């Protein structure tokens, strides 16, 4: 069987490189190649990176128009608004996580690679988180300022997003994989995934509110981390199972 | 009887709750039965034709 799996179409260099080396690219190499390609794609023209970032910024600025510009009101809802919008940005950018690879058939090749579908899913989830979500986290303090977030809460805003958002990518990946063969699967995907985001949202916002109210944020963070760990166990495996279905 | 229907002043809530429950359960049961009958009839319709075709 021809395991020249690196027919990743958006990356001819990698393809040639992989095929030059022949069949024998090990799992770690493939993992790295997928990761690098997805990160690059996210930040190429029309990629999800800039779009998610712009969405994050614009959607948060809508809230002062909706609820009024009073600093106290904004400060009260700042943590919740930033978390909810980050969650939606994540959802929107996950929509087509697997779709391009599914449609052009490269997912079939990847499924046969020594990495396996679970590893493929893990690589793509990691790439999504690094390329699309980390920039959001980095931007979040600016949005905190716009929303008049309590001065004591900025560190916790970053920390809670860092610990919690991996769960969003991991769980969202399952939704993306389940709806990969559905045309306009984005709306369906939100229906599947949003209820599962509830715990992350609760603990993430809870940690920030606790820090702003000068109470102990540690329990919130611990539960937030636990949710992410559970998602880490389920996410890649369930995504791979869902992808396998659509490849049959 | 009037006292029973009045439910201590909570009639609107109690009877609405029981009414909605009854309505939902009956609608689900009846629609399941109807769809089941329709599907069964169509299976019966298709089957003899197939046998004839084979014969």
């Amino acid at each position, binding site marked *: 069987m021809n395991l020249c799996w690196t027919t990743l179409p958006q990356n001819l260099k990698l393809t040639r490189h992989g095929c030059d080396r022949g069949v024998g690219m090990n799992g770690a190499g493939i993992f790295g190649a997928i990761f690098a390609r997805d990160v690059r794609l996210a930040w190429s023209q029309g990629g999800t990176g800039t779009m998610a970032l712009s969405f994050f910024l614009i959607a948060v600025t809508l809230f002062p128009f909706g609820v009024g510009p009073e600093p106290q009101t904004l400060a009260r809802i700042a943590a919740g608004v930033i978390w909810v919008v980050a969650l939606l940005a994540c959802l929107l950018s996950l929509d087509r996580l697997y779709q391009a690879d599914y449609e052009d058939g490269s997912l079939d090749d990847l499924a046969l690679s020594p990495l396996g579908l679970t590893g493929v899913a893990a690589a793509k989830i990691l790439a999504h988180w690094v390329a699309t979500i980390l920039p959001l986290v980095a931007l979040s303090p600016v949005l905190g300022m716009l929303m008049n977030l309590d001065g004591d809460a900025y560190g916790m805003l970053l920390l809670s997003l860092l610990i919690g958002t991996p769960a969003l990518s991991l*769980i969202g990946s*399952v939704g993306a994989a*389940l*709806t990969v*063969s*559905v045309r306009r*699967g984005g709306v*369906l995907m939100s*229906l*599947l995934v*949003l*209820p*599962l985001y*509830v*715990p992350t949202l*609760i*603990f993430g916002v*809870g940690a920030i509110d606790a820090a702003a109210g000068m109470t102990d944020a540690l329990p919130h963070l611990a*539960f937030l981390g636990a*949710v992410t760990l*559970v998602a880490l166990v*389920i996410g890649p495996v*369930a995504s791979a*199972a*869902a992808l396998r*279905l*659509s490849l*049959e | 009887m009037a006292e*029973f229907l009045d*439910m*201590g*002043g*909570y009639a609107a*809530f*109690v009877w*609405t*709750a*029981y009414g*909605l*429950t009854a309505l*939902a*359960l009956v609608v*689900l*049961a009846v629609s*399941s*039965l109807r*769809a*089941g009958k329709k*599907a*069964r009839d*169509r*299976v019966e319709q*298709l*089957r003899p*034709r*197939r046998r004839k*075709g084979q014969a």
Partner: protein
Amino acid sequence: MHRFANPAEFNRLADAILPWAKVVMAAAFLYGLYLALYASPADYQQGESVRIMYIHVPAAWMAMFTYMVVAVASFTALVWRHPLALLAGKAAAPIGLVFTGLALLTGMLWGKPMWGTYWVWDGRLTSVLVLFFLYLGYMALWRALDEEDKAGRAASILALVGVVNIPIIKFSVDWWNTLHQPASVMRMDGPSMPVEMLWPLLTLAVAYKAYFVVVLLYRMKLEINLRKLSVLSSLEVQG
């Protein structure tokens, strides 16, 4: 007709169970409603509105129970590739959705006289609301994929991911609720409930469960026939 062998056996089993389940259902509903509406005392705090509890709490139990049925069916379908299990999940989901909706509606109607408002973000109501969304997602996924078998297995994966998340969701919502606890929320504590109130509750719970069995069996027979129909019509097309 080999591929129907299993369903035929199921149909025989279902036909054997159905009459009994119907008798239990009818008896439990009649006796339970008699107790709930007439023969039980009004609560000294809540007055007659406590009668809503007798249909609200069993509905909430059924909402959880049915999701567990869907999850077990999904697991069986995925691990052993059991076609009937797939159909059992599909048949059970609408029943669960109805019970979940009823738990929410009756909860709101009980909340208005008790809490003064139709909706409070009470821990229980909120987790039942999330459960309602999980049912919606499961059923939407079944409909979204054209190929019946794939749709079922995709929905099964979702149901299993959901069932792992249910305790986490429940816990997080309770946690969130105690942080934002409105002082007026009253709790119905199980053990302190007097026996006269426990009986109607349990009787109606039995009635709901029997109803579930009856409708589930009918819906599974329906799904089997729909399966047959798609096989028969494809044979017809092939000539």
